[in-house]
Each structure stands twice: as structure tokens, then as C-alpha cells.
């Protein structure tokens, strides 16, 4: 793939990240902010794997896996906290 195609993919994905970031900044309740951050992290995980392909570094896939695990644990922890179970 040509670099222009990569740049197009990255700009589309970063547009999604910016939408989620605006929601995380605006969100009226705490749940809205957590939804925004969760979407941001999932999109960033996918873009990180694509960035690893672009730069030719395989270690980025591992970084993406660890980031996904941390996002899962964080969202579950915040949900338990909001449910007053923590």
C-alpha cells in the first residue's frame, strides 16, 4: 500500500478518536465520559496495529494487546465503582 492510503486510513480513524474525545470532554454524566474514553481506546488499539504495519515494527501489536487489556480492566473497575460495589 502507498503512504497516501495509510494517511487516509489514519485520518479517518483519528476523526473517530476526536469525536470520542469531544464526547469525553462534554459528557453530562460520568457514564458518558467513560463511554467516550472506552471508544477512544478501542479505536486507538486498532490504529496502533495499523501504525505497526506502517512503521514495520512488530512490537506495536503487543503494545495494542496490553492497551486493550488495560482498557477492559479500567472500564470494569469504573462500572463497579458507579454501581457502588467497589
Amino acid at each position, binding site marked *: 500500500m502507498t503512504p497516501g492510503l495509510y494517511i487516509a*486510513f489514519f485520518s479517518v480513524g483519528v476523526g473517530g478518536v476526536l469525536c*470520542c474525545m469531544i464526547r469525553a470532554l462534554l459528557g453530562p454524566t460520568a*457514564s458518558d465520559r467513560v463511554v467516550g474514553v*472506552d471508544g477512544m481506546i*478501542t479505536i486507538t488499539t*486498532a*490504529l496502533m496495529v*495499523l501504525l505497526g*504495519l506502517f512503521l514495520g515494527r512488530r512490537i506495536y*501489536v503487543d503494545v495494542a494487546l496490553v492497551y486493550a487489556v488495560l482498557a477492559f480492566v479500567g472500564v470494569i473497575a469504573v462500572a463497579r465503582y458507579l454501581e457502588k460495589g467497589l
Partner: protein
Amino acid sequence: MTATTIIGGVVVGFGTIFLFLGGLGILRLPDVYNRLQAGTKCTTLGAVCTIVGVGIIEPGWLCKAVVVALFILLTNPISAHALARASYKSAVPLCEGTVVDKYREFGECEEAGSTAETADATAGSEP
């Protein structure tokens, strides 16, 4: 430009479009629960398509990419479910145009049933 590169590029493009649509849904929809719907389904499909597409482009990465995709596919719905349940229990309001709220109806039914049971028990123990 081999065939796998073209197929993988198409899959990655499909995935990134869905990622953007998920972000747009999170920004535009009126309610926490609607936002969770967009932010879970669209984003999961987009991320899985993007990661598997990278695995198709670079066949040496396919094993690890499928592991990451499977992890996202398994854990994203779980976290969304936990978050929706927590936000309902912490009394986040539903949006204006909400038509049906099955969770509250079910809770009311359960409550009524339990009170009726206790009333029956007390009535049975009376004589």
C-alpha cells in the same frame, strides 16, 4: 501490489470507516445507552476488521493479530454491559424519546411479586 495486499487494504478501509462511524455515533446520539450501542457494535466491528486486515496484508503477523482481535471481540461487549448496568443503577436518565423501559418493568414485577408473596405468607400465618 499482490492480491493479499489489495484484499487486506479493502478490509482495513472498511474497518476504519466503521471506526469513524462509531466515534460519530458516540458524539451525536442523545443518550448514554444509545451511545453505548454505537460505541460498542460499530467500534468492535471496525477494530476487528482493521486488525484482521493488517494480518492479511502481513501474513507473518496473522496469528498475533487474530489474538488481539479475539480479545477485543470478547471483552468489549462485557465492559459495555457492565457499564450500561452501572449507569442504569446510578440513575442516569433516559432520553426524551424513549418508548419502552423493560428493565424497570421487570424490576417492578419482581418487587410486586415479592411483596405479594410476603403478604400471602403473613395471611397464611394469621389463623
